[in-house]
């Protein structure tokens, strides 16, 4: 074979879809992000014949593509591994806008672009805790039941970092990499302010030559994500297969089971079948697929409760610029620090504060200033934008570069916040979202307490309006014990369908105060174990 035509990807185990369509798989996994990748890996390691169906391309292992909003062209986005189609959203009752959510499409899904923040949730994120009632009465699976899977996920994803000094839970097994001088100063300053920073929990193997691929694809199996910790080890078992550039268009239901899925590759339709279907297309697209599968029920698959697509949550992002004390260097773009001093405050559920991999130079500060309410109000006067730029430039000259911290504020489920089917474009999820008064109130509390604790003079709250984190969608196929108020049961099996399971962020009934990836991974392993156990029993009966 000519060397020029040598295969340049490590993922060579692809199967033409027509061949994949010839057999019944033990499990088809729809989507290869954190949820699909890890579920498929566990299933393949337990001996099931697994077919991964991925909408995006395999890509090349040496790519270091960074996530961007551009280009907008469908084919170009598909090539780069970005979700190719936009979403449409109506936020807070305003105009409907169309934009690209920060979603990946390709092996590893969005996780190949993530910042590898794998923080553990708190007990009260899931359970009713003394004096701190859970808003839903608690998840159907408790924190203690999740513990072994959180631990397994941490191991598979090589999570490293320090224990949170405010928590009784132990930290990751692997140590955090050494800090730079400026980062040490940041820790010292925060400790002086009476806070409790700890080394953020990250899913990186820190191999020699590690380039900290935050926000971009990692060319080595160093950053651990749905590809490097999911699909690639799954394919190495020999039990898994991948079809890429393959869009699932509809699920077909026959007597309480998903019998087939219709997929499209290169413009041609194919039908695939499996004993078990694992849906992991992400919390915006998994419900869209179910809602669009109307062959048997007009309201869509698995939707007897009417909750498919509802309960949509995003975290609120609060960006905070913090300048070092005079004489101290700026820590710049660093992901090294997390702290949970504001995780809850006087009975309010808030969330994690972490340093963000962004250096707040003049351009970043100016961009945020321009978006502020005041400047927007006077923005029609000429020169206001330039004024903001100049102000930011002067600030940078005086104070040096800031470090940007990002606070996550937990979102809670509302029936009316939802993903629904777009009337004209079946590819685009339609998002309807209102900020509840309750959420706005907690945001006010968060901003007040952050300003108070971090000091008024060296910090700047960068967003004046609440900012939704569209990369952290969850809740749209919530699990619960009541089939009339949830889509999935405690096993993340659809109440309505005996062979449909969900392993992406859709299952979460509340959004927690931390980045969702670790919980998605832990739940994927848990659900895969349930599926594998059933598979083992079925095999034994068959013998």
């Amino acid at each position: 074979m000519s060397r020029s035509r040598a295969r340049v990807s490590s993922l060579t185990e692809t199967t033409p879809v027509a061949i994949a369509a010839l057999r019944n798989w033990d499990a088809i996994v729809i989507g290869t992000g954190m949820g699909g990748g890890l579920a498929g890996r566990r299933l393949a390691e337990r001996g099931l014949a697994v077919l991964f169906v991925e909408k995006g391309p395999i890509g090349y292992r040496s790519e270091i593509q960074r996530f961007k909003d551009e280009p907008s062209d469908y084919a170009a986005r598909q090539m780069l591994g970005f979700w190719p189609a936009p979403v449409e959203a109506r936020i807070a009752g305003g105009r409907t806008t169309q934009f690209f959510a920060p979603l990946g499409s390709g092996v590893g899904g969005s996780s190949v672009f993530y910042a590898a923040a794998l923080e553990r949730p708190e007990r009260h994120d899931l359970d009713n805790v003394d004096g701190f009632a859970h808003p839903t009465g608690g998840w159907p699976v408790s924190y203690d039941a999740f513990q072994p899977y959180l631990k397994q996920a941490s191991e598979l994803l090589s999570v490293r970092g320090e224990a949170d000094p405010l928590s009784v839970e132990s930290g990751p097994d692997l140590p955090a990499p050494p800090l730079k001088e400026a980062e040490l100063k940041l820790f010292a300053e925060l400790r002086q302010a009476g806070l409790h920073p700890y080394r953020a929990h990250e899913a990186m193997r820190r191999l020699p030559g590690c380039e900290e691929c935050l926000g971009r694809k990692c060319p080595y199996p160093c950053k651990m994500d749905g590809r490097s910790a999911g699909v690639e080890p799954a394919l190495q078992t020999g039990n898994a297969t991948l079809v890429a550039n393959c869009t699932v268009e509809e699920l077909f239901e026959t007597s309480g089971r998903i019998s087939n899925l219709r997929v499209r590759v290169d413009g041609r339709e194919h039908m695939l079948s499996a004993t078990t279907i694992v849906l992991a297309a992400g919390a915006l697209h998994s419900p869209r697929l179910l809602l669009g599968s109307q062959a048997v029920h007009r309201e869509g698959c698995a939707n007897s409760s009417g909750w498919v697509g509802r309960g949509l949550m995003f975290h609120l992002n609060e960006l905070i610029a913090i300048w070092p004390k005079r004489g101290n260097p700026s820590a710049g773009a660093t992901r090294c620090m997390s702290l949970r001093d504001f995780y809850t405050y006087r009975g309010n559920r808030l969330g994690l504060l972490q340093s963000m991999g962004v250096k707040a130079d003049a351009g970043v500060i100016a961009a945020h200033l321009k978006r502020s309410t005041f400047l927007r109000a006077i923005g029609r006067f000429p020169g206001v934008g330039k004024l903001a730029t100049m102000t930011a430039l002067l600030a940078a000259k005086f104070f040096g570069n800031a470090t940007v911290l990002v606070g996550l504020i937990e979102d809670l489920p509302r029936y009316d916040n939802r993903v629904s089917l777009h009337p004209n474009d079946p590819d685009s999820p339609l998002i309807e979202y209102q900020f509840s008064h309750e959420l706005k109130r907690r945001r006010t509390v968060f901003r007040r307490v952050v300003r108070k604790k971090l000091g008024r003079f060296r910090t700047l709250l960068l967003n004046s309006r609440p900012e939704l984190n569209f990369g952290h969608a969850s809740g749209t196929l919530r699990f619960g014990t009541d089939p009339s108020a949830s889509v999935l049961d405690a096993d993340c099996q659809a109440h309505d369908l005996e062979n449909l399971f969900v392993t992406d962020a859709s299952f979460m009934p509340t959004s927690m105060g931390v980045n969702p990836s670790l919980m998605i991974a832990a739940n994927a392993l848990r659900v895969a174990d349930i599926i594998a156990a059933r598979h083992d029993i079925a095999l034994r009966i068959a013998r």
Partner: protein
Amino acid sequence: MGGEKQPVALVTGSGPGLGRAMVHALARRGVLVAYMSSDSTNGESEPGLQITADVTNPQDVVRAVDEIHDRLGAPTILVNTAEVHPDRDILDETPTSFMATVALNLGGAFNCCHAVLPDMVEAGKGRIINVVTFADLAPAPMASGYSVSKGALRILTRSLVADLGDRFPGIVINDWIPGTHAPRRNIADGVEPSLAAEWGANLALMDAPEVSGMVFLRDCEYRPNVSLRHRLKDRLLGKSRALVRLGQISS
């Protein structure tokens, strides 16, 4: 991750002139050089590996790159120098003669890129230099095929950057206008090929991702005229920077 290996360069169009001078300049810098031309007669006592191949023939090019791969290693540097410059009145061009010029000046460069890119993509790094001219901006009389094909080659450079730059920033791609005016004669200010080749060899060893997409004219980065307003703004925002130069000439 992965040790530094000796670079391997493929220079096309290594007849007398710039191509041959590039072979020498690269070899002096410790690069393993292969040079490819359709003419096998004048190549003895040259450094490097001589390969006879027609760049307009994709199979020839693939075979040549396979041979380089086996004997020197995967090419890490490609310098597309091969070109023809027929002096021909457009009234005398035939569809065949016109497209033959395009097939060599543009198609030959594409064929070589196509053959070396899989290895560069796998490594996540590589170097491509397309030798071009400003002929596309103001085509000279009697040079339609040349001007069109070289102009298109500059677009190919930008297309390569558009498709590869984000995913593989380690593959560094440039246009270079050496100023030798070869093979055109009778132009007084042409640079000696041996001098231009020193700059070209330095450019070929410049592998910083920031350099990718820049156009080089002789020994210096070339930027089209920027308005005073933009220059002032860049200065204020601290974005202005010095032009990249191709450095001192080794003796």
